[in-house]
């Protein structure tokens, strides 16, 4: 069996007295779409942030391609962050830069491409998320859903191996939700590994390969989308049906 691309081993995280993660173990396989599911405050987003080094676990390891990223400093994490991209919940676009400048940002920082090549890549990325022609607009000129799609375009522009999505479809209209899910599936076809944090059940079962259910700081259930949907676990069933937190 192939070695997982990301291995989370015994990760614990505390915020003061609050236990966010209590010895989490999780493998993420290359090319799969894994969804982290759980109630509010169950530590899904903290786990997602830990996978790119935005949060440091208090205990345990996170191995990316065999390298423990919890031991790396900000400078050493740069190489990891070129290979793992993060899509923020509300896009987190730089509001003082145009859309084109937002997308060009990682290219200017990490590549030696010419201005012409950067423009081409920016245009292609915007086309991919269905927002061609919006290069000169400011983030404030776009709707929330469009901003998130630009956030996805910025994340994929360096052609990362892994993309982490923090609630990519929460609060979006059906059109924008479909657009985001289409992008996730398109990227899967290109071999990109995706990890999603979401509460949106229809999204989970539409695109995901596996689902991890977080409860009380632990992975309470892990399985394929079908296994999770047809679960006999009363707690999980209650969560999916919206009867319990």
């Amino acid at each position, binding site marked *: 069996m192939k070695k997982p691309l990301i291995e989370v081993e015994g990760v614990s995280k505390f915020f003061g007295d609050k236990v966010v993660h209590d010895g989490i173990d999780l493998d993420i396989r290359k090319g799969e779409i894994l969804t982290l599911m759980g109630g509010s405050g169950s530590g899904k987003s903290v786990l997602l942030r830990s996978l790119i080094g935005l949060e440091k676990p208090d205990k345990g390891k996170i191995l990316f391609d065999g390298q423990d990223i919890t031991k790396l400093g900000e400078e050493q994490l740069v190489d990891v962050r070129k290979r793992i991209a993060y899509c923020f*919940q509300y896009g987190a676009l730089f509001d003082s830069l145009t859309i084109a400048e937002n997308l060009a940002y990682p290219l200017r920082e990490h590549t030696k491409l010419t201005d012409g090549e950067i423009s081409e890549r920016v245009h292609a990325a915007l086309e991919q998320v269905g927002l061609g022609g919006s290069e000169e607009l400011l983030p404030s000129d776009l709707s929330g859903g469009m901003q998130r799609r630009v956030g996805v375009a910025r994340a994929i522009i360096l052609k990362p191996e892994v993309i982490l999505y923090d609630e990519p479809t929460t609060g979006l209209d059906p059109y924008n939700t479909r657009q985001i899910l289409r992008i996730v599936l398109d990227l899967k076809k290109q071999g990109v590994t995706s990890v999603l944090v979401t509460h949106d059940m229809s999204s989970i079962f539409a695109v995901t390969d596996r689902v991890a259910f977080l409860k009380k700081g632990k992975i309470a259930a892990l399985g394929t989308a079908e296994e999770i949907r047809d679960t006999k676990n009363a707690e999980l069933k209650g969560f999916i049906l919206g009867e319990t937190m």
Partner: protein
Amino acid sequence: MEKTKQLLNHTSRRSVSAMFRAVESFGGAMNLTYATARALFKRPFYFRLFLDQCYQLGFKSLSLTSITALSTGMVMTLQFGLGLERFGGKLYVPKIVGLSILRELGPILTCLMLAGRVGSGIAAEIGSMKVTQQIDAIRALGTDPIKRIVIPRVLAMFILAPMCTLFADIVGIFGGIFIASIELNIPASFYFHEALVGLRMVDFLVGISKTFVFGLIIGITGCYFGLQTEGGTQGVGQSTTRAVVTSSSLVVIADFILTKVWWIYERGLQ
């Protein structure tokens, strides 16, 4: 009696917690200063961002600092003119006003104005970036917020605070010349000559050297409180207030310490 006891307990608890917060903030700001100094000489360098901040923080503050200096020069000349005229000392007005502006009022008033305008602006801008996850985005995109956000602002303040002060000194002295010639019947050429001849290079250096430290204080404090922002728009407001209060207080405290250091040095020379 019981209520007084409760009130005292509550007050002492709040005082202790405020003291802890102050110590924590001081430590955090020192850490940020150290990290900034370490990152300053490492690639990449964002020269364009630095120039942009020079324009935003320095050039755009010139009108405010100039109005303050002009008004100070004019008011001081009027006040000293009125006071010294009674003792026949009106002709000392240019020297006294020039000395006061160069050594003390130019630097301190300029930097207090900068602490208000620039310190609050930096804290609000960075705080807004923090609560909208733009600072996290800078990190997630493999770049360093200290290099992109902190260094351009701190460096701009380090260089622009003395520049603004120099400009304010000149404007302040010209304000004095203007009022002296209109209200005190002191000829402009006499005022200018007396103000320049009566001053030494060390008077200028005492004032301008302090502003490098004030600039650093304003830049670091604004960035520190901006980066510490939590909790949405309310948090941004709180950070902005803290940045202005802290940087203004630190500027005034540093002013006394630096003045004392210069005083010891000058006494040693005599």
